[in-house]
Structures are given as structure tokens and as C-alpha cells.
């Protein structure tokens, strides 16, 4: 009997020890798992990946819905701070193509003279009309009294936007909406200005709208940028005769421009697909905007 009870007691001890051993093993495994997961868990400070992604996405959405007036300051600050390396980068890009030959220089000079003559012709036409009217209004020559401010320019043209950064700003009397000339033709208007820098929105920029007139035709229309180094004249009825090569002039604007100045040439003129009673007129600049080094800003009331 005693042997039997001893065996039973030993068996009980064995079972209890086995249970303890198993429990310890399970506990050790749990601890190991916890340690591994703790050390493998991707954390940055105390942020998990999901939290990190959520926070960044939230910040991105804030940027997305914030007014552009606020967010564009980041872009302007980048241009201001890195203006020097950006200009070096552009010089590298500009240095890559072959140096402009004498022929190119002559061509450019010719374009400048052609634009100048076109401007004079248009001004003369207007003067003739004024003389015919024999008005007693005070008259003066176009751009008389206006200050023509020369500035260095660097282009920033990508697929979407066409802008120029110029080396003059508010301190030089520049202001928003002033017209900008290059090779005697209008290339755009000032869209933003800081104390020493200004940004020119080219008339080919999709957000640009500018008042224009096609030579010979006494019809005022607006021209909207088309981003692909061209612009479209809006709502031009087909009853007017327009042909490829016609010159387009920027309309006078009180306080900003007192004489029409050439802005581009008609490069395509066809019936509008959506509205057959209107022309679809494409206008391209009359100067090589991409290779501009300097521009002139018209400050009408210096």
C-alpha cells in the first residue's frame, strides 16, 4: 500500500513539475515575442508607421486646400534663397546649345526692328484717327513720361506654367499688372512683386488674360494663354477676316499702357470646332522668350 502511495505521490510531483516547466516555457516565449515585437516595431520617436503616414497626409491635405496666396510664398522663398544656384543651373543649360551665330544675332535684330516698326505703324494709325477727330484733349507721345526699367530675367517654363523671374522689385517702382517688354514686344505682365524681385506671368501662361487687338481690325478681344508657348484669342467672330501672319497688339490700359504694342503673330486661324461662328485663333510670341536675358518693364507713373 505504502509503495503504491509513494508512486502516486511521485507521479503527482512529476505532473506538477511538468506543468511548471510548460508554464515557464510559455511565459518565456511570450516574453521573447513581446521583446521581438517591441524591437521590430517601426517607430520614429513614439510614432508608428500608420500615424506617421496619417500625419504627413494631413499636412499634405492642408497644403492642398490652403489658399494659393499662402502656399506660393514657399515657392517664392525657394526661388529667392536658391536664386544663385538656379542661375548657375540655367547657365549650364543655356551653355549646352551652340553659341548663337552672327546670323542668329542679325535675325534677332531684324525681329526687334520689325516689332518696332509694327508698333510705330499702329501708333501712327491711332494718331491719324486722333488728328481726324481734332480733339482738344491733351495729347502726348506714346510712353512719354513712362519709365522703362531694364531688368535681368530668368525663365521658368515648364509644361504647365510660363513665368519669368526678374531682378527688379518694389524698391525700383515695380507693381502688379505692369507690362513687360522684350525685343520691343509685350511678353507678359508682372504677377507678383517683392522688394527686389518680381515675377512676370507670360501671356502664354494658362492663367494669363490680356486685352488685345488684331491689326487693321477695330475689335477688342481678350487673349488667354495656352501654355504651349502660344495663346488663343477669345470669341472672335468669323465675319472678320483674319489670316496667318496678322500681327496682334496689346490693348492700351489706363495707367499701365498708353499705346498699343505688338504682342504676337497669328500662327493658326481656323473655325472653332465647338462654336463654328467663331475663329479659333492661335497667337505665338514675336520674340524668343526662352533665351531672354533681359527685359524692360513699363512703369507708366514713376
Amino acid at each position: 500500500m505504502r509503495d503504491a502511495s509513494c508512486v502516486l505521490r511521485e507521479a503527482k510531483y512529476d505532473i506538477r513539475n511538468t506543468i511548471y516547466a510548460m508554464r515557464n516555457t510559455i511565459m518565456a516565449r511570450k516574453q521573447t515575442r513581446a521583446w521581438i515585437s517591441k524591437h521590430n516595431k517601426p517607430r520614429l520617436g513614439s510614432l508608428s508607421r500608420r500615424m506617421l503616414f496619417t500625419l504627413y497626409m494631413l499636412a499634405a491635405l492642408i497644403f492642398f486646400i490652403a489658399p494659393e496666396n499662402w502656399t506660393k510664398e514657399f515657392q517664392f522663398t525657394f526661388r529667392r534663397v536658391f536664386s544663385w544656384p538656379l542661375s548657375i543651373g540655367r547657365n549650364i543649360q543655356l551653355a549646352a546649345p551652340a553659341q548663337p551665330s552672327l546670323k542668329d544675332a542679325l535675325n534677332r535684330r531684324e525681329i526687334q526692328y520689325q516689332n518696332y516698326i509694327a508698333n510705330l505703324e499702329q501708333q501712327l494709325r491711332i494718331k491719324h484717327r486722333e488728328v481726324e477727330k481734332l480733339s482738344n484733349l491733351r495729347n502726348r507721345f506714346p510712353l512719354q513720361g513712362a519709365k522703362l526699367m531694364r531688368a535681368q530675367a530668368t525663365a521658368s517654363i515648364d509644361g504647365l506654367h510660363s513665368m519669368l523671374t526678374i531682378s527688379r522689385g518694389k524698391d525700383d517702382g515695380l507693381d502688379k499688372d505692369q507690362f513687360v517688354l522684350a525685343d520691343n514686344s509685350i511678353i507678359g505682365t508682372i504677377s507678383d512683386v517683392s522688394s527686389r524681385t518680381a515675377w512676370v506671368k507670360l501671356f502664354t501662361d494658362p492663367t494669363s488674360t490680356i486685352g488685345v487687338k488684331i491689326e487693321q481690325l477695330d475689335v477688342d478681344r481678350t487673349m488667354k494663354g495656352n501654355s504651349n508657348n502660344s495663346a488663343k484669342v477669345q470669341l472672335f467672330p468669323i465675319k472678320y477676316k483674319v489670316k496667318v501672319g496678322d500681327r496682334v497688339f496689346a490693348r492700351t490700359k489706363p495707367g499701365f499702357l498708353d499705346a498699343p504694342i505688338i504682342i504676337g503673330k497669328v500662327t493658326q486661324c481656323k473655325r472653332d470646332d465647338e462654336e463654328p461662328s467663331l475663329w479659333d485663333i492661335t497667337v505665338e510670341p514675336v520674340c524668343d522668350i526662352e533665351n531672354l536675358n533681359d527685359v524692360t518693364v513699363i512703369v507708366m507713373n514713376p
Partner: protein
Amino acid sequence: MRWFRFAALVLLVAVLQASALANLNIKPDLLLILLVFFAIYCNTSDAIISSFTIGFAADIIIVGSAMGPQIISFGLFGTALAYLRRVIVIRKMPYQSLAIFITALLAGLLTHFLNLLKGEPAVPNIYAVLFWTSLFSGLVGPFLFLPSAWWMRIKINRFSRR
């Protein structure tokens, strides 16, 4: 992750993209190539941070554009690629090219739709431009991984058999 080196690299690439490559008609998207590089070779948390940061850089280099679309699309697809990399190893150059091409296409499309949502004007022939930019980026990208890895002190083990 060496964040100071990362900042210097992103700034350098942003300046290059905004200046030397700005006026080319068809150009590789260097920032997107960097995005894929960090998504492939960094851990997921670092890849998330670098994706959004590169998206921010891509947005600020274009004056006049709306901010946000590129941050969102770069962040989203950079993170997705970082998670995908945990399942599929993208180590050989053809696969890297393909990853860059697909990411560029998807990120470009999302950016385009977000721009439309914000009322931004669309580029003419946007899909053609997007395709050629993605293709060019895919072709050039893997070759830029080597100098990027050297600068970031990341071992890329391109030729290992793992």
C-alpha cells in the same frame, strides 16, 4: 538614415530640376527617381518621410503651380512602393526601371487629377508628356541610384543573389 545628407541631396536635385532641366521638352523627373530610390532602399518609416519631403520639393520648384497635389501623390505612391518592397524585392535594374516608370505614371496621373480638382489648367497633351517623362525617368533612373547610394552611404547589393 542620414537626414543631413538626404536634405542636401534633395535640395541639389530640386535645384537641378528647376534650372538645368526646366526648359527641356522631355526630361526625366529626378525627384521621382529619388523617391523610388528611397522607397526601395530605406526602411518603411524613412521611406514615408522621404516620399512626402520629396513631394514637397517637387511642389515648391514650380512657381505658380498649386501646392499639395505632388506632396499627396508622391507621399501616397512612395509609401505604397515601400510596402510593396517588403513583398517583392526590386533589385535588378530592369525591375527598378519598371518601378520608376509605373510610379511616375501613377503619381503623374494623380497629380493631374488633383490639379483638375483644384481648377488648375491642364498641360496640352498631358498623357503624352506623362508617358515620355515616365519612360525617360525609367531609363535614366537606375543609373542615378549608384551615385545616390554612394552619397547616402547605402549598400545597394545590386549584384547579390538574394
